[in-house]
């Protein structure tokens, strides 16, 4: 396999009353080896559930209703979406790890950091002894630049700060050298200076740990700082996908343009922060045309009738918009 992960036609749905509502609609993504892949979009676009689906961690009653996700694992190629629960469990933590948005609640408040780090090792290494586990945990804490690792190991989560906890979460995630790390808005709950530190840390670890990262965020600043390749999500679809330079400099989709304009910048000339009017239409309220049509400043009649296809507008740069390609989604 050339890529680490190839997602094809991923669909996620949820029952609502008698109806079934689509939440993620035919998403294709390719994550390369040692690549950091950004997924960006507003809340409710299906970013997080796409990632959760990869680990079979969708909350009830959401379910995957189609598609494949082929993953080049340590023991050969596997299809993540159809793995049995047992095999999936042995993959979690060992090959795919995840970090979450709220470091303050991501560790169990009643156990020490050491206990929870050891738990993550023990499950995948039956033969390891207590002393080795502690050594391993200490080494990981040093790698994520925790000051006084010995002491931190014996602390409870409430004794540590958000930044420290997120470092520990990263340490836990990387403990078993996973091939893929999914970071679900890892910096959203942290303040700006800590955000920068965490992002630097992740960049640094990516270099040394031979791990691909899927970075889910709504912050284009985070994308600019960490990612090589970006997919922009809107209403359960990919609307634009390209390498990070093209996304920022040859922006094609009106939604991405809107997102870029809505970024706060220091010393900018605009007095008022730009916002895209309206909200993301929730699943079930998608029309047959372009899902961004309602909020789009460049809407044409065609946009309301037909759904544009995700078409290549430049080599490696795909966009779902009639401004750039007349192709209609089948």
């Amino acid at each position, binding site marked *: 396999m050339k890529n680490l992960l190839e997602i094809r036609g991923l669909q996620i749905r949820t029952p609502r009353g008698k109806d079934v509502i689509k939440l993620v609609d035919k998403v294709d993504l390719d994550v390369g080896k040692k690549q950091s892949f950004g997924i960006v979009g507003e809340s409710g676009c299906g970013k997080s559930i796409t990632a959760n689906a990869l680990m079979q*961690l969708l909350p009830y009653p959401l379910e995957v209703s189609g598609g494949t996700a082929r993953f080049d694992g340590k023991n050969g190629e596997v299809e993540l979406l159809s793995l049995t629960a047992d095999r999936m469990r042995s993959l979690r933590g060992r090959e795919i790890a995840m970090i979450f948005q709220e470091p303050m609640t991501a560790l169990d408040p009643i156990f020490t950091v050491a206990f929870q780090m050891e738990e993550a090792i023990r499950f995948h290494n039956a033969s390891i002894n207590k002393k080795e586990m502690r050594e391993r945990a200490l080494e990981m804490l040093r790698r994520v630049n925790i000051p006084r690792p010995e002491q931190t190991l014996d602390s409870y989560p409430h004794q540590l700060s958000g930044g420290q906890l997120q470092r520990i979460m990263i340490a836990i995630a990387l403990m078993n050298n996973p091939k893929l790390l999914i970071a679900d808005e890892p910096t959203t709950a942290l303040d700006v200076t800590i955000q920068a530190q965490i992002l630097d840390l992740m960049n640094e670890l990516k270099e040394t740990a031979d791990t691909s990262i899927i970075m889910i965020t709504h912050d284009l600043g985070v994308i600019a700082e960490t990612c090589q390749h970006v997919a922009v999500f809107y209403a359960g679809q990919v609307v634009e996908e390209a390498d990070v330079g093209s996304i920022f400099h040859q922006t094609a989709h009106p939604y991405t343009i809107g997102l870029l304009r809505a970024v706060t910048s220091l010393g900018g000339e605009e007095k008022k922060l730009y916002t895209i009017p309206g909200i993301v239409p929730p699943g079930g309220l998608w029309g047959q045309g372009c899902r961004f049509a309602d909020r789009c400043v460049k809407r044409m009649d065609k946009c309301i009738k037909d759904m544009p296809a995700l078409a290549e507008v430049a080599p490696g740069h795909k966009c779902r918009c009639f401004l750039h390609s007349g192709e209609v989604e089948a």
Partner: protein
Amino acid sequence: MQAQVKQRALPGNESVLRLIWQEPLGRAGLLGVTLIVILAVLAPLISPFDVAKMHPKAKLAAPSFVYLFGTDHFGRDVFSRIIHGARVSLVVGIVSVSISAGFGYIFGMIAGFFEGKTESVILMIMDVIFAFPSILLALFIVSALGTSIVNTMIAIGIVNIPVFTRTVRASVKSVKSMDYIKNARSVGLKPAVILFKHITPNVLAPFTVQATLALSGAVLTEASMSFLGLGIQPPNPSWGSMLSDARKYMEIAPWLVIFPALFIILTILSFNVLGDALRDVLDPKLKL
């Protein structure tokens, strides 16, 4: 620095009893409960007379130094009967709450953890049990099983299962949505490990509070059932049946009503106040 960190860990490890003692209401509840428990445990040692021993010469005697709380229409010592009654009440309370807490924990865990159809079915059954007034349902069960102390405990136990199921289910669901459970799953832990190691300890606080509060409810239900004649059977003393017997003599011997009623109130009040204090200490978020 090491010492400083250790020190900060202290509030979490501080004895729950000590924290309760610091609050006036908590202290009152704790004292009341302790008093009842001591009386119940030491009943055979401190009761001045046998519970069934009749004193024909002292029927309906008013409280005095010989008969502390007076005597009933058979000449039995009310004080002795009350402290033995405390024993019965507490045993019934503890056993029946254990039954309801045990089953409620199991059902609540299953409902909260597995969700979907299992949850709906369990909740539906619990709603059906809930729909009956608790005393009525307990009376049904006892009349079906036959009157005995064991059946009384079973009946009260069954009646209280839904409350525990709901409490546990609600807490499991809220704990389950926390990131640390997601994290436990994403590092590859087995569901059983997550359930027992990460979810159970985190739902223990509301569970303990519920148990304390349910205990007073169980005591009251037992007293009501005995009052109606379907609880504890003579010659075993029970506060409820003592009250029931006393109805006929209320005007001439008010102590027959006053003391059992007083002890029922004292017990229930103490457990409720203790439960509230426990809740404030274990789960400050719930404090109103």
